[in-house]
């Protein structure tokens, strides 16, 4: 089981007009592992995971998620697949006209089949408890701190019990202590839901805590790939720059 990747990316190309962002990117994600992707601002990290979830169309290359080729799926198949893939946005992306409860209920409304025999309220409460925010259930997003927003967004992601979670800078904009709390929470969630994750981050502490493996995205390709410890000792200039 463990040698079958849940995400398989090979020679992926993506450009916006004349701006070549991904130039033959390759990576795999296996069951039950966390892969950290690091890269400079603007290197295309967000673009990469938006391609994975089908928010952006790719130019060419192989992109398989849970055995399905993303570019070949129609809208219905894509929606079905997205039930199993959670996406944590860089800015949390909470719906600011809705309460925390309504935010969490929103992904449930389109997928009643996944709710069979489960109580909607229970699911919401359980997800909030798992991120330590049970008391915030009736608050509006505007009333939450940055760290709380990230937690609520995390709860909204895990409520669908995804097999894969894609994190876009889960700790950015937080103080180091809260950042670490979120990182440990991500590890706890991985254990709880047995999910595999791609984690995009600039935060070394987060990368160290959560990552089983690390990839440096540089110049549109998978520039270096190893464990945190191995990469942190690398003499290679662009790699070294991240650990200074």
């Amino acid at each position, binding site marked *: 089981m463990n040698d079958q990747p849940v995400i398989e990316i090979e020679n992926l190309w993506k450009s916006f007009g004349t701006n070549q962002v991904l130039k033959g990117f390759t990576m795999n994600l296996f069951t039950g592992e966390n892969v950290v992707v690091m890269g400079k601002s603007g290197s295309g990290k967000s673009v990469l995971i*938006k391609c994975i*979830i089908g*928010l952006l169309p790719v130019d060419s290359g192989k992109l398989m998620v849970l055995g399905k080729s993303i570019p070949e799926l129609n809208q219905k198949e894509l*929606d079905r697949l*997205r*039930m199993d893939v959670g*996406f944590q*946005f*860089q*800015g949390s*992306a*909470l*719906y*600011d*006209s809705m309460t925390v409860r309504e935010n969490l209920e*929103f*992904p449930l*409304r*389109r*997928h009643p089949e996944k709710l069979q025999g489960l109580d909607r309220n229970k699911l919401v409460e359980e997800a909030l408890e798992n991120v330590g925010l049970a008391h915030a259930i009736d608050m509006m997003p505007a009333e939450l701190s940055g760290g709380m927003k990230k937690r609520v967004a995390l709860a*909204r992601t895990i409520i*669908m019990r995804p097999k894969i979670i894609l994190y876009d800078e889960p700790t950015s904009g937080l103080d180091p202590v809260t950042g670490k709390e979120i990182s440990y929470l991500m590890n706890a969630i991985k254990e709880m839901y047995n999910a595999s994750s791609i984690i995009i981050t600039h935060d070394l502490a987060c990368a160290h805590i959560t990552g089983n493996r690390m990839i440096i995205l540089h110049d549109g390709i998978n520039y270096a790939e190893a464990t945190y410890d191995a990469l942190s000792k690398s003499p290679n200039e662009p790699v070294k720059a991240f650990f200074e």
Partner: protein
Amino acid sequence: MAGMRTLKTYFAETGEITLFTARYFREFLFPPYEFRELLRQCFLIGNKSLALVSITGFIMGVVLTLQTRPTLVEFGAESWMPAMVGIAIVREIGPVVTALICAGKIGSGIGAELASMKVTEQIDAMEVSGTNPFKYLVITRVTACILMLPVLVILSDFVSLIGSAIVEHLKGGVSFQLYFSNVFEYLKFGDLIPSVSKLFFFGLAIGIIGCYKGFTSKKGTEGVGRTANSAVVISSMLVFVLDFIAVLITDIFYEL
């Protein structure tokens, strides 16, 4: 050169708005239908503009009557007052003024709301969680505009006529009963058809422009303000253009 480029973006945008409108009608027909959100939007639109529309309607009625009164008195035609004001308000002033207020209040609100949802990736988040954002956000808001504008116009017309009747009562001693029976004597049902049918297009224009501008707004929070602004400018202008076309068409029918 710069002029050419502006002209090119103008035509490109017109084309995109046309496609956006076509998409509205296409997706409107197919499920899933977001009834709850539609009802919520109708309520919000009504709630937001009720006071504004009533106040401006009342003032329009009062001002129109006060200003035309001396002229009519001079020609000894004061008894024409209810008919004249009634027709002016129901056929033209009520729909156009209310539509302009809605373009300002609702069009800018929709534009700013969707633009900030776009910038903060809330629209992407919807898409990822399996909800079609076009159906959930655009269809509901545009439909709510189309449905609520006639309601607001009827309210505005009614309040205007009351304002006018009050002036007539105070200045000319005309009873409310006489005033309104006079208005309805001259106001034909046929007067309602052109004004209601142009309201459909006003509502469509206000909703579509607000949503289109919001959906296509560029990154950055300053984009939100600019979006709201251009939504108001374009939809107000469209209200006048559509009104002009509607009046031309009605004119042809009157001559027949």
